[in-house]
């Protein structure tokens, strides 16, 4: 790593020239540890400003006075050496690590490189090797448990399913809360586009899935607005800065790296089911029932007749649910060729991923090729560019309540032979126990959504040093993709009985141009004061289009073309274009190596706001102080200490077209009955429009997030133990939101600037070397995060509002004044003042529930991750445990399995009567403990169904998230072979979990990345992945 740092810094170090030349000294600087050349080391003649830096081979040449003189060799992270020249013409130096310095160069906003100690805000880095070869195709999933202040939740174990990420809580009521992703300087789209209602569609990918975890060199997380403000309006959610593998770090050598892995995955964390009772109700067999409240097995009933009239044995089919899921397989291969030095380099990278999912006939694949390079021309102009093409395919099945494979899989009676009998007849229709629903295997075969994304992204930079202290550069980036989708529901599909073909073409493009002028000066007015100023300008354009056509009433079975339809509805075209011009500055002061101050400001002018309000300014200030350096503290206990503080404000513009009020093609109804204009009435096509449900606003102003953070970092025992503690607080105001208004106004929402939401949190990071005995080493690295979000204010008279998106009536993911964002408002058990559930004395069941009550809060109380790394010579074992403590999951699947008598718990003492927990109102202000006995079926049903508090489970989970065992072959073994490095490894994910309050794995989030969290609405289950990998370097 240090080697990389050295090179990165080499280009930054600026030294004044001009001194009376008397003689020349040359030499080579090498590492005290391994003797390798150290490039980029500062070499200064003491007492002067005359100096140079070492080249890639560690060589330097400097002019010195005729007699004597002392050379000072310095580099961040290494102990500074002062060496008298005497009369020597050659001075070679070995430099050793400075363990007390604990300092690294890190990449911050807009690619700026900063000494870690100068940062007044929190920034966390993850190395590529900690993300690669982790039995996982999605980059965000590989970050789980490794970052503080960051909450990551996968939608499911479905192939290619999206992953939600929020940094330091959510800041916006209704807009995107995912962080900005920057890949090699390219603003990289990470949207998750649902072409279908997210309650019933597939689980599409978030577009960061277009990048393979294997291609990452490093990843930096800029958590707060102070760190991210230079990126402009989208920085309020934090920024993930990704650097992919590149050439130019190999000192002219060409290096070829091949990685390969194969992994398997299984559905994991399914609830335990009972095998004592079969299909039916009230102990009677019923061949159409979705329930398992039928007679016990092994009794009088030994044979039953199916709906199709077949006589079959009446017995448990223990694996009828778990056996539906198959063993998934992930094969990843990659070749990376890197060559050149820092002035001239190239890189070619090809990678491919193929995944067969755990649900039959689902898959995910990603193939990418990237080529990049850079050169420094003779006139000093530096040119860098890279271009990547990636094709990502995802094949998924429709999910969600009713009418889908996963909507049915929780409704398979225990005696139903799901896998052993045919699921379709000769005409391709489903054979199932229900006439209105389809066999899950039929659904996986005939209800598919296939997507193909073709994406190109790249950048080009030109840089020139006008003066040694003045640099100008221009960077142009582009990221564009087309996502083509086809939803195909065959004739007989429960949701589209006449069949349906839906074609979607989604185009997305973002262009950015950044002009940056940087001036910097050491010993600015005062000895030891360095200053740098950056002035930048950003021009941004984002455009998108979504065109679709929809055909129903298909005629030719199996012909999946839109021309197969007889009725065409829902043809649509939605375009958007937005532009923004920003101007930004960053002013940086450093005094010696212990006091730093950074000021930033940005003005944006956006196309999406009304002209009168479309220009807005936001500043930030941050500072850091390193007492150990300031006071020259030399101690074996306290090796390093730093305190930091920052304050920032970030402005954000609106989405396009929110200023106007429009008319839209009319439509009425929902999934029970609906029409969409144009209607075809008596052979005449009747077009119709209606006012859109939203009122636009010509008075919109930008929304702002204001945040501050403080923190400290100490290194103890020669930095064997490092602890970093931070606290942050942010407040988001004037949010641009489509506020729910009285429908009697004729509209459903009105766009307005409203409300306030705050996030406050603690972040702790610890790393330590626990043990070092000979070649054996045990290191730990841990993090702990606690975030408290509060909706402080929405708008006068509005207590709560539903989060924009798809939700079931009566189960509303909401933001409610005084509560954290994302609580689920639904029907709660009706309770007395003492909090006891009220039971109806006439029935022994609960009295009707209380609607409009907060019944679930998906926000975690705290989350933590702990990585243990054990290494011995070439062998290393890394074990990541994480904890997500608190927070609720609203699960359709579990409550369904419980109320329909499938879950194991429902078979316990089924023949015994039960009493619901609760009290009976005596009508005189007193309550009697419920004593009314009811049968097991009534009991489990009375707890509540899909739309009730019974569906809420505490999602606390302790998990063995990741395990990686790696062995690097000793160099001695490789001498004489073409290999420079060979390593093999085993890895596994989600190998074990413990969720004390949930019947299965609570890490489910059916609607995927987005603002609605904490709901399992009949989506795919989670998976356990494991496999092996190999990595070869030539």
């Amino acid at each position, binding site marked *: 790593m240090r080697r990389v740092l050295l090179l990165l810094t080499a280009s930054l170090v600026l030294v004044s020239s001009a001194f009376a030349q008397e003689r020349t000294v040359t030499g080579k600087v090498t590492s005290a540890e391994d003797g390798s050349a150290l490039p980029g080391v500062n070499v200064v003649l003491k007492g002067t400003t005359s100096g140079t830096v070492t080249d890639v081979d560690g060589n330097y040449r400097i002019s010195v006075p005729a007699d004597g003189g002392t050379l000072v060799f310095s580099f961040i992270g290494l102990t500074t050496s002062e060496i008298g020249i005497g009369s020597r013409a050659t001075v070679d130096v070995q430099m050793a690590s400075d363990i007390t310095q604990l300092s690294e160069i890190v990449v911050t906003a807009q690619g700026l490189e900063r000494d870690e100690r100068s940062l007044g805000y929190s920034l966390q880095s993850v190395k590529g090797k900690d993300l690669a070869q982790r039995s996982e195709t999605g980059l965000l999933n590989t970050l789980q448990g490794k970052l503080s202040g960051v909450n990551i939740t996968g939608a499911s174990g479905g192939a290619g399913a999206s992953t939600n990420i929020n940094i330091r809580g959510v800041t916006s009521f209704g807009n995107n809360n995912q962080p900005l992703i920057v890949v090699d300087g390219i603003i990289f789209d990470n949207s998750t586009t649902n072409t279908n209602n997210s309650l019933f569609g597939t689980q599409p990918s978030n577009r960061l899935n277009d990048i393979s975890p294997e291609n990452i060199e490093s990843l930096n997380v800029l958590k707060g607005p102070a760190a991210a403000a230079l990126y402009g309006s989208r920085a309020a959610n934090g920024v993930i800065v990704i650097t992919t593998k590149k050439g130019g770090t190999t000192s002219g050598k060409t290096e070829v790296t091949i990685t390969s892995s194969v992994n398997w995955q299984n559905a994991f964390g399914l609830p335990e089911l009972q095998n004592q009772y079969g299909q039916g109700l009230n102990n009677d067999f019923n061949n159409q029932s979705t329930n398992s409240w039928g007679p016990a097995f092994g009794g009088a009933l030994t044979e039953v007749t199916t709906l199709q009239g077949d006589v079959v044995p009446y017995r448990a089919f223990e694996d009828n649910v778990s056996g539906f899921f198959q063993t998934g397989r992930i094969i990843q291969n990659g070749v990376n060729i890197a060559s050149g030095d820092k002035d001239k380099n190239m890189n070619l990278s090809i990678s491919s991923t193929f995944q067969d999912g755990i649900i039959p006939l689902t898959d995910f694949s990603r193939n990418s090729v990237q080529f990049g390079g850079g050169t420094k021309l003779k006139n000093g102009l530096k040119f860098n560019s890279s271009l990547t093409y990636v094709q990502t395919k995802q094949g998924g099945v429709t999910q969600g309540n009713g009418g889908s494979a996963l909507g049915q899989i929780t409704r398979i009676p225990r005696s139903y032979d799901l896998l052993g009998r045919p699921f379709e007849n000769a005409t391709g229709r489903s054979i199932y126990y229900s006439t209105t629903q389809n066999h899950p295997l039929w659904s996986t075969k005939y209800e598919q959504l296939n997507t193909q994304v073709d994406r190109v992204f790249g950048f080009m930079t030109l840089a020139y040093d006008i003066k040694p202290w003045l640099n100008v550069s221009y960077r142009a980036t582009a990221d564009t993709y087309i996502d083509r989708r086809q939803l195909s529901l065959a004739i007989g599909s429960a949701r589209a009985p006449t069949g349906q073909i839906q074609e979607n073409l989604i185009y997305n493009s973002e262009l950015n141009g950044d002009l940056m002028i940087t001036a910097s000066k050491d010993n600015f007015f005062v000895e030891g004061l360095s200053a740098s100023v950056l002035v930048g300008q950003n021009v941004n354009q984002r455009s998108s289009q979504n065109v679709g056509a929809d055909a129903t009433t298909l005629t030719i079975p199996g012909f999946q073309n839109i021309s197969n339809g007889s009725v065409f*509805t829902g043809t649509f075209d939605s375009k958007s274009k937005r532009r923004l011009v920003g101007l930004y500055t960053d002013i940086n002061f450093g005094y010696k190596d212990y006091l730093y101050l950074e000021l930033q400001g940005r003005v944006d002018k956006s196309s999406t706001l009304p002209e009168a309000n479309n220009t807005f300014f936001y500043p930030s200030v941050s500072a850091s102080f390193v007492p150990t350096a300031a006071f020259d503290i030399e101690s074996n206990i306290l090796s390093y200490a730093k305190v930091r503080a920052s304050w920032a404000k970030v402005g954000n513009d609106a989405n396009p077209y929110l200023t106007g009020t429009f008319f839209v093609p009319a439509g009425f109804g929902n999934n029970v009955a609906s029409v969409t204009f144009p209607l075809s009435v008596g052979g005449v096509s009747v077009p119709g429009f209606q006012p859109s449900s939203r009122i636009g606003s010509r008075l919109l102003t930008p929304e702002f997030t204001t945040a501050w953070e403080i923190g400290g970092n100490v290194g103890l025992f020669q930095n064997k133990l490092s602890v970093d503690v931070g606290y942050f607080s942010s407040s988001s105001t004037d949010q641009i939101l489509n506020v729910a208004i009285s429908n009697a106004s004729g509209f459903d929402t009105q766009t307005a600037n409203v409300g306030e939401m705050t996030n406050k949190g603690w972040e702790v990071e610890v790393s330590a070397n626990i043990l070092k005995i000979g070649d054996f080493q045990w290191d730990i690295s841990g993090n702990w995060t606690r975030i408290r979000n509060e909706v402080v204010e929405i708008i006068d008279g509005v207590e709560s509002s539903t989060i924009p998106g798809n939700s079931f009536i009566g189960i509303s993911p909401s933001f409610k004044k005084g509560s954290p964002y994302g609580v689920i408002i639904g029907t709660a058990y009706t309770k007395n003042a003492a909090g006891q559930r009220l039971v109806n004395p006439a029935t022994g069941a609960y009295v009707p529930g209380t609607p409009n009550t907060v019944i679930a809060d998906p926000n975690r109380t705290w989350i933590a991750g702990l990585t243990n790394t054990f290494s011995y010579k070439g062998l290393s074992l890394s074990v990541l445990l994480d904890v997500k403590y608190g927070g609720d999951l609203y699960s359709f699947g579990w409550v369904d399995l419980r109320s329909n008598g499938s879950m194991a718990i429902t078979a316990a003492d089924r023949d015994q009567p039960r009493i619901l927990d609760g009290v009976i109102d005596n009508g005189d202000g007193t309550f009697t403990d419920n004593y009314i006995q009811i049968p097991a079926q009534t009991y489990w049903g009375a707890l509540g169904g899909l739309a009730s508090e019974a569906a809420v489970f505490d999602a606390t989970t302790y998990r063995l998230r990741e395990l990686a065992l790696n062995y690097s072959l000793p160099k001695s073994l490789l001498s004489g072979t073409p290999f420079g490095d060979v390593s093999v490894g085993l890895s596994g994910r989600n190998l074990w979990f413990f969720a004390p309050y949930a019947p299965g794995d609570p890490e489910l989030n059916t609607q995927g990345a987005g603002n609605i969290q904490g709901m399992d609405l009949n989506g795919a289950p989670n998976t356990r992945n494991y496999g092996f990998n190999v990595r070869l370097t030539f």
Partner: protein
Amino acid sequence: MKRFQKLYKTLILLPFAFVLGCDDFLDVNQSPNSPEKVPVSLLLPSGLVGSAFANANELNRFASTTMDYLYGAAGGPAAWDIYNTDGANFGNQWRFEIYGGALTIYESIINSEEAADASSYVGIAKIMKAYTYSIATDTWGDVPYSEALKGAANTQPRLDSQEDIYKGNAALGIQSLFDLVREGIVALNTTSTINPTAFSDVVYAGDVARWGRAGYTLMLKLALQISDREPALATSVINEVIAANDYIVTNAQNLSVNFGGSVGSQSPIYTYNNISLFQNDIMASTGYVNLLNSLNDPRLPIFITAPTGSYVTYENGFTGTLAPVANRSKWSAAITGANGVGPVKLITNAQRAFMLAEAALILPGVTLPAGQTAQTLFEEGIRASMALAGVTAGNINAYVAANPAVVTLAGTVEQQRAQIITQKYIAGTGNGLEAWNDYRRTGYPAFAEHLNAVGIDGKRPRRAQYINEEVQRNPNFTPVVLPNVNVWWDVN
């Protein structure tokens, strides 16, 4: 180097210049997706279909279950079958069919730039606005009216009392529904250069004269609805309607909304009953079949299917195991419309005849046209309904001849009223809201309460509870009014 110095000075200044002078570059916020204006001809069909949804979608299933047309076998209808309804019900109806649907569309027509040249559209819009508001107030009681549909100008409109909505209240600036219809009729009679056509008028295909008849018949319906509460006002309005002599008098003049026979164009009754995932949640009720059997009514086999050859129905509130779905009796194509073409019948000729008959019976001041009596109108209503159902003229005559007790009003005023409302109930099969309105107003047909009834008090709901969303969004909607509280015109 000098050259470069100049260059970098320019470069530093350039971005400032660009930021300040980029207005054209940033002028891209006009939506390419949606128009800010549309002609009235594109609004009318949406409004009419919206009103049809308000009448015939969820509210109809609720009212048809409550009123024993249907038995709720599962889901929402099963809850309504035991009178369970609360603020979680009918959100879509209030939000997207009534206020945010038909009403806001009619309002857009009335306020459009074209309005001055399109008075026929304005007339239709006002009549249908009054009709749609009557659904809202008859269902929920006091509702936003005079302050409603004003968009950003009033995002929390107050409630107007049902009394003020029907009668008007000048002091509060509330126009009566009658005056709204009268304005509509005046507008229909005003010269209009932009007129509806078959492409925009899915009721009368552009026949503006028929809209006038619909307007007067609507006034009759509104007046009769408040007749027990405000007999004098009802009498005067009904006499005004009779005097104008311009109301629906043939089945062809029915105010009924036409749908299409293909997916996405079909009537909601058909889609729910025949296509949707929830089609087996409803089936015919035993009470209904027994009633028609007791009257030897020839419409029974026309309205209700019998897949097994006999009627497989359940008594409302029944909770036992049900017959296989394929065997159950359901609404037939005569109610749902073949392939979903409907029509959704909002006001019919038969209904008009029964309304006039009842008015003559209970309102002494009502003067019927020469030659008409409550009895002639009662028989006219039965004949009109049977004819619409497809009973041949010969069979109608035969039925009338064979069942004099059914087609002849006899007994006390209340007994005769029961006869009229019962026949109106049969004629109105498929329009549950009107039956529920009549039941609450008159107590007929005198069905028993459902088995296992729960609700608030074990009796049929007297109104719908305000939807949760509206209560959440508009502070004028507190406190909660439960479904067992009578609306203003419900004096029984």
